Each structure stands twice: as C-alpha cells, then as structure tokens.
C-alpha cells in the first residue's frame, strides 16, 4: 500500500507543476507523467486491462496535445489570481473535501467485495460467456449497452473534431 501513496503524492506534485510551469511543452510532459503514474496505480491495483488502455491513450493524447499546441503559435496568457478568488477556491475545496470524507466513511473497506451483482458476475462469467478475461465478458456481454454508449460518445467527439478542423466546405 505504501507504493500507492508514494505514486499518488508524486502525481499530485507533478499535476501542480503542470499548471504552474510557464513552458507549454514541459507542461504537457508533466501531464503525461501524471497519466503514467495513473497507469502504474492501475497495475498495482491488479487491473491490467485499465493499465494497458490508460498507457496507450496517454501516449496518444500526449502526441495530439503536442501536435495541437506546440509550434502553432497560440499565445499563452497567465493571469494572476486575485485574493478573493483564492479565498473562495480554498473555501470550496475545504467544504468539498469535508463532505467527501463524510461520504467515504460510509463506503465498505478498500478492496472488500460486497456487491451482490459483482459476485454474480465473477461466479458465472466464464460459464455463461466462455470468455476467460472477465473484463471483456462484462463490458461486451453483460454490459453491452454501456459499451454501445461509449462508442457513440467516441463517434460524436470524432465528428466534432473533424467539423471544427475540416478544410472543405468552410464559408470564408
């Protein structure tokens, strides 16, 4: 458990760095480091499916971010935060963390399988679907609807990007 906390603290430090660094490229690389830390976290929590997906998506989004920002001459504006905004932000985070702590106390202990539905899936997945990777069995068989929705979201986002960036049919 100690390594999880170490990685988590490093991720928070790097995330703060990503916001504060002036240089755009360094900021994007810091963002990539956060994603790599998340991938390691998934691996340590024994979720290799998520770790692989997180790793490759992080690499892709890093490339896309670099392509979209660096060298295009988009100016960066940094504004100094006023004191009132800062106070409001700190207050909001304090309230949010307090309520979150209250909610977390109600949850079952970390890693303790309690869910009725989940134990059912674990018991019957191989028998009913024939897939030995239980994650694939759940996302593509038991919860096919969710994956369909996810595919629709991806389709819509791709259409959105292409509509913004297209060259033909644009009114000058």
């Amino acid at each position, binding site marked *: 458990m100690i390594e999880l906390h170490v990685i988590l603290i490093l991720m928070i430090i790097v995330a703060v760095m990503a916001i504060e660094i002036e240089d755009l490229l360094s900021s994007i690389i810091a963002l990539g480091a956060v994603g790599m830390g998340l991938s390691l976290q998934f691996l340590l929590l024994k979720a290799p499916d998520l770790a*692989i997906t997180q790793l490759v998506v992080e690499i892709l989004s890093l490339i896309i971010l670099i392509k979209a920002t660096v060298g295009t001459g988009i100016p960066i504006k940094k504004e100094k935060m006023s004191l009132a905004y800062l106070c409001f932000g700190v207050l909001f985070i304090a309230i949010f963390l307090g309520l979150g702590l209250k909610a977390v106390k109600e949850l079952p202990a970390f890693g303790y399988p309690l869910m009725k539905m989940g134990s059912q899936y674990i018991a019957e997945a191989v028998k009913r679907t*024939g897939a030995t990777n239980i994650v694939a069995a759940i996302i*593509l068989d038991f919860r096919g609807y969710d994956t369909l929705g996810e595919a629709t979201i991806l389709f819509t986002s791709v259409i959105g990007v292409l509509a913004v960036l297209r060259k033909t049919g644009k009114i000058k």
Partner: protein
Amino acid sequence: MKERGMSLIVKRITKITVSLIFLFGVYILLHGHLTPGGGFAGGVIIALSFIHLVLAFGKESALRRLSEAAVSVIESCGGLMFWGIALLGFMGGYFFLNVLPKGRPFDLFSSGIIMLCNIAIFLKVGAGLFSIFIALAIFRMPSEDKREND
C-alpha cells in the same frame, strides 16, 4: 521541394519497429477475451503505429497507405458492425444476447460475440483516433500559411 519527415536514423528504425507495434496491437486485439487488453487498447495501439509512420515519414507518404476517406469509411463500418452484432441478439431473444456458440474456454475462437465485438470496437476506436490525429496534422493555423507565403 524539401524532404518530408524526420532524419534518416528515425526512418530506418521506424521501418523496423512499426510492424512490431502493429503486430502487438493485433495480438492485444485478438486475445481480448482471453488476456488483458481488448478492442479499445488494440485499436489505440494500431492507430499509434500509423501515427508513428506519419511522424517519421511526413503525412503524405502515410496517407498514401491509408487515406482520409478510407479512415472515415472504416470507422463507420466499425460502428455499423457493433450495431449489427447487437441486433444479432434478436435471433435468440433480446438485444446483445450472446447467440453464437461459446466454444471451450482459453480457445482463440471462443466466447461467441465478444471477439466480434472487440473487432468492431477496434475498427471504430483505431480509425476514429487516427482520423483526429490526421485532422490535426493536416490542419494549419492561418498565421502559419501567412508565414509560408512571405
């Protein structure tokens, strides 16, 4: 016209590595129902192998292998295939029913529709993400055009 892409070293190494990345993506994709991975991760890895080509050789030579129109057709095919597999369930009863034979566990051709679903998601995700990258690679800011004309 000046040579597109990166230096000779990058091009030579890309020629060796790109096929390995592609093969690894296919492995992750086809074994999605047996080992960690699946359509999404495999699709992203295969899209990354094409992005690797674009980055090393410049967009023209990579687009000759896989044009923009082909990418959009592939993505739509993936979406339609996923819907088709879902509708196939009506043969046995309801939406998304696993109607195909399950086979033995740990076989490559087992688990009914899950493998087909993985392939459909691979087509969709790989083509979709690659088309986003292609759009960004082709897109130029108006300021850039002006700089080249000067």
